[in-house]
């Protein structure tokens, strides 16, 4: 199995690009992404190891609270082409 460290910066960067891509303004996107990542991390509690699918599920769950389009794009990003 391919284990790797969770790269919070990369996740935030990717999420910010997606947020801007779906039309959320820069300032709002940054605030929004910070909150989503924080809440997603909280949902894991003290777990040390999580799968990519777990992470994606948690992020999508948080995104759905704020913006349906953003959540849809993040959830289906590997199902477009």
């Amino acid at each position, binding site marked *: 199995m391919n284990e790797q460290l969770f790269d919070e910066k990369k996740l935030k960067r990717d999420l910010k690009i997606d947020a801007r891509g779906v039309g959320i303004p820069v300032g709002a996107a940054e605030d929004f992404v910070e909150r989503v990542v924080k809440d997603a991390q909280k949902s894991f509690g003290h777990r040390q190891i999580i799968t990519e699918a777990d992470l994606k599920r948690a992020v999508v769950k948080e995104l759905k609270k704020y913006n349906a*389009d*953003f959540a849809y794009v993040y959830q289906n990003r590997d*199902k*477009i*082409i």
Partner: protein
Amino acid sequence: MLVMIFLQLLPGVFAVFCHYAYGKYSKKRASDLGLFFILGAETIAACLFLSCYYITYVLFIGNARPETGIFAWIAVGVLVVLAAVSFFFYYRKGSGSRLFIPRHIAKALDENAKKVKTRSDAFTLGALAGTYELAFTLPLYIVTAVEIMEMNTEYFSSNLLTVLYILTPTVPLFVVRWMFQTHHNLADIMRARVKDKNFTRLMLAICYITIAILIIYHRINLS
């Protein structure tokens, strides 16, 4: 020409590319990069079509004329196979609008779309995406090249038709670009693609079959 409009790889890659470009850069820069992507796709379509035109010209100008029937039967066979393939395998099973291309290529296209920084990157990505759909476009290029070459120019100039044929694959790209410019986003495009999945593959199959029937009708003497 209609088949080209229903092919989904190029618009799919372009939509992903636009999403990342609008996410990273200003609207003006993203729109500019989009134009170079379209130019890349256009250039590769022109190169491929004109190459096919030249090859068929060299092959058929000699003794092997297309109306001998062998060419026509091969073309009909390929088109029928393409109709079946596009109906059953153009989209992968499951949710989303995943296409026939191998997954590592789809991932590479997505990664490349994300990394685009300059106009030349955008141009190259457009050209690259155009070549991955060659399995579905090459037979059409060959058939069309033969038809245009042998066309009665009473109604249309063959040059005009060639230019039109080369421009057609980029029509969906301009639609996608226009959608992004008018505040639609990738989610809207993805939902539309998923919704129209069955319609698209049905139309592709119908288009290929229609071309095959036209070839049988005009080129093969069944009596």
